[in-house]
């Protein structure tokens, strides 16, 4: 019988372990921030 695992438990197991010292990539340099609104 298929046992439905709790989401948290599944997510725990599925989460890919990150290497030590992992630094998220910097935001792309361009385009820059929107100062008013975009049309």
């Amino acid at each position, binding site marked *: 019988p298929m046992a439905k695992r709790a989401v948290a438990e599944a997510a725990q197991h599925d989460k890919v372990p990150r290497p030590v010292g992992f630094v998220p990539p910097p935001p792309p*340099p*361009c385009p*820059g921030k*929107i100062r008013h*609104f975009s*049309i």
Partner: protein
Amino acid sequence: APAAPPLSPLGCDDPESEAAAQFAVNYINGHSHHGYKFALNRIDNVRVVSQGLNNDIMYLELDLLETTCHILSPTPLANCTVRSFTQHAVEGDCDVKLQKLDGKLSVLASKCHSHADSSEDLLHVCPDCPLLASLNDTEVLATVTAALNDHNSKAAHPYLQLLEIGRARIQHHPVHSVSVEFAVAATNCSAAEAKGNAGACQLLPEDQSNFGFCTASRLLRPSEDLSVDCQLYGHQVPAPSPPRSSQDTS
């Protein structure tokens, strides 16, 4: 010795890019003779090509938005309000080539084109918002003429002449109305003198020039009404014109 690590590309939000973009926007506004002042909305891209020590060429792609200040207004750009989305905004796309030599910026070339936001986008958000109209629309021309005549008939001095129509919007629902904005200039006539022969009235010479700006709204249905507001800027000492050089601006 290991080669120096390549300089990381300049980011669009880096202070150096921001300073160059503001310099470019001031240049664009300073070299424009029609329409409205534009403000920086976004730096779309920046590319730096080194020409040698302390000598870089910067290519900027800028996204600007129209403000409510006419180009002849002495109001500093920082105090000019960016036209809101529901006022049917106008966007400017500019490509600017600058040189940064020993830390000093100069514009070598700039090319801009502007376009209004799409009517569909505006009506989707604001179904009853008036849309930008063509400046040679007959209702627009009639409203500008009526507004200027109305102002000149009520103001004793000076008789104002039309310089250019800046923008116009027409609303058809729930009322039929036309709103216009136009630039004016003082002439050497008083209203009384103009009554006799308006054709003889001349714009004041540059050293006495006095420009202004008018907004008017004309209700056509369900009843007729006209409201006009004209403000003169007073004589502005013209800024020293930049030295003519090979700078290409289009």
